[in-house]
């Protein structure tokens, strides 16, 4: 035990002396390792960020895993031969279903447009009418104010979450002052007063104002319009006439998605009667196998490993040349009592101590590169507003890789060092 302690301390001291004396060589070889670790960490970190961004974008458009979409259409063979489905019945069945299966996150989604009275005139603005849970289901980010609260549905004045363009067009008012705009149904004079409660950021390609409304408030405004259709949210528009069509979606645990599909189909078919076709399907990114980003990961990982291998090769090269020069020194040490194990450990230690230091430098450089605004712009292309933080995995991977490369690169010279013939080494 005592010997092990002095052996360890002695080997570290030897390694340190060695590094101190061969500063230049060590520094040069370390630059190679630092660059390799930096590239590896950067590639992995960027890969992780791109993947995260992709996932978020997919989730924003088609929901988080697992999101079930439900649609129903009439094939005209039902009672009365009507091609339309009763929207109110559909809505009621939906509400009942959410309750029956204890689904917290369910939303109707309806696209339409409303006339908004801006200072410079009345403009039709695209509306996405949703239920309150939609914000959580689609990771909707709100830069000012807040997403709808459950209480908003009870308000008489419709609540609006507008995009940045809309908000700027009304003069970027402080939301604490409850700014209002006038709304009217499609083609109608804006007369309904609505309150803006939140602002969403816009992607660089968006140029038009748009907004979110709660489905019931949207339907109420539409219904108040003499030219608009009446009835439930799902029924007031004819899909073939280019009007709005309600979609129904729910966010459920991925494991429950598959068993739930036939149940939903059965319940809705029973409720809506004959002649109605009910489709339930998944559309989130995770539906395609376990990991839709596997290919991206493999490509990025492959490049990273190649980069690291090149770094390791350079290191092994330098270490081998160096150990040849040090044969004499190793012989001297052996003749003064250094055991083979001790020489092996000391040579190995040098390599590991040095590469760990280089690894830390490489990871720090990688963090600086990945977090720099220039690289963020390049990777994000203006599509991503909320960059994920530097992935801890990537930093850890960089350090582990540096240590492993140090141990690997140290192994060969350490083996050479152990095989040194002592007297030959000293006498030549």
């Amino acid at each position, binding site marked *: 035990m005592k010997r092990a302690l002095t052996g360890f301390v002695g080997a570290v001291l030897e390694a340190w002396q060695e590094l101190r004396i061969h500063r230049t060589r060590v520094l040069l070889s370390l630059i190679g390792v630092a660059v390799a670790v930096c590239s590896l960490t950067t590639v992995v970190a960027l890969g992780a960020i791109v993947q995260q961004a992709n996932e978020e974008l997919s989730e924003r458009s088609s929901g988080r895993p697992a999101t079930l979409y439900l649609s129903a259409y009439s094939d005209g063979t039902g009672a009365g031969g009507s091609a339309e489905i009763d929207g109110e019945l559909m809505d009621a069945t939906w509400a009942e279903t959410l309750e029956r299966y204890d689904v917290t996150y369910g939303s109707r989604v309806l696209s339409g447009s409303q006339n908004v009275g801006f200072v410079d005139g009345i403009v039709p603005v695209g509306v996405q009418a949703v239920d309150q849970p939609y914000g959580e289901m689609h990771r909707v980010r709100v830069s000012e104010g807040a997403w709808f609260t459950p209480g908003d549905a009870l308000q008489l004045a419709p609540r609006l979450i507008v995009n940045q363009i809309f908000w700027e067009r009304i003069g970027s008012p402080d939301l604490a002052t409850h700014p209002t705009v006038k709304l009217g149904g499609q083609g109608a004079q804006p007369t309904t007063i609505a309150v803006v409660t939140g602002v969403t950021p816009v992607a660089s390609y968006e140029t038009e104002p748009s907004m979110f409304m709660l489905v019931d408030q949207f339907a109420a405004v539409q219904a108040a319009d003499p030219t608009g259709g009446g009835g439930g949210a799902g029924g007031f528009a004819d899909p073939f006439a280019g009007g709005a069509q309600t979609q129904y979606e729910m966010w459920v645990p991925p494991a429950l998605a598959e068993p739930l599909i036939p149940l939903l189909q059965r319940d809705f078919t029973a409720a809506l009667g004959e002649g109605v076709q009910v489709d339930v399907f998944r559309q989130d990114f995770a539906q395609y196998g376990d990991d839709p980003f596997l290919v991206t990961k493999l490509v990025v990982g492959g490049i990273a490993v190649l980069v690291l291998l090149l770094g390791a090769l350079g290191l092994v090269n330098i270490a081998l040349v160096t150990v040849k020069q040090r044969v*004499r020194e190793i012989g001297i040490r052996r003749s*003064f009592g250094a055991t083979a194990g001790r020489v092996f450990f000391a040579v190995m230690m040098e390599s590991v101590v040095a590469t760990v230091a280089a690894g830390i430098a490489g990871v720090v450089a990688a963090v600086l590169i990945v977090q720099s605004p220039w690289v963020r712009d390049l990777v994000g292309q203006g599509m991503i507003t909320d960059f994920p933080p530097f992935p801890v995995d990537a930093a850890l991977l960089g350090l582990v890789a540096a240590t492993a490369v140090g141990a690997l690169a140290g192994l060969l010279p350490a083996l050479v060092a152990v095989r040194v013939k002592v007297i030959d080494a000293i006498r030549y």
Partner: protein
Amino acid sequence: MSLLHLSEVTRTVIPPDQPALTILNGVDLTVEPGDRVSIVGRSGSGKSTLLNLMGLLDQPTSGTLTFDDRPVKSYSSAERDRVRGARIGFIFQQFNLLPGRTALENVTMPLLYASGTQFWRRKAIAAEMLEQVGLGHRLTSLPDRLSGGEQQRVAIARSLVRGPSLILADEPTGALDLDTGQTVMELIDDVATRTGAALVIITHDPAIATRARDHYRLDRGVLRRADAGVGERTAALAADGAGASGAGAFGASA
């Protein structure tokens, strides 16, 4: 009880694509604690191989080699390394100081392989040793800033720092001028006497060899005793064609 004993030791190597080469042939040698032994031989006579064996760096092909009356074959490789570190001190012709390390660091080096007090107090012990060889004022000097004689003194301090019972000196004055060689030899004799260590000097210089008490000649792998008497020895050395002018009277006085 003998410190080092070689009995009928043979060492054979087999070069690639060539017949076996016998380098040492039936060598008998006993070194007792405190002995002074010189081994003289020409280049290629097998001196290095003998040094390897005595320094526990190599194993005989046949015959027995014992250290402290224990056959060296029975030691594990690590045990041999540890015994070598603790009990044997090497002094080389080319000094073999570690470049880039100060005199103090060079003398500290063997203590890095010790344990206990020797390890933890290594700097103090090394400084004291350098003081003893008269280099107390050059602790922080690098080898290339030291003269040949000073470098060999550092090497001597290094070989003695762990208090070995056997000092193996391989041509210790070979790289020094005559006067410096004499001084260095006196120092080696002196510290060996003080510490009670046995001293084996391998040399081709008869002047150095005569300082020892027991004299051997190594010729084509065969070791013969060469010190039947002072007269014969001088005659033998004279016959060897080398000048014996530098020979001191160490053998008689020690």
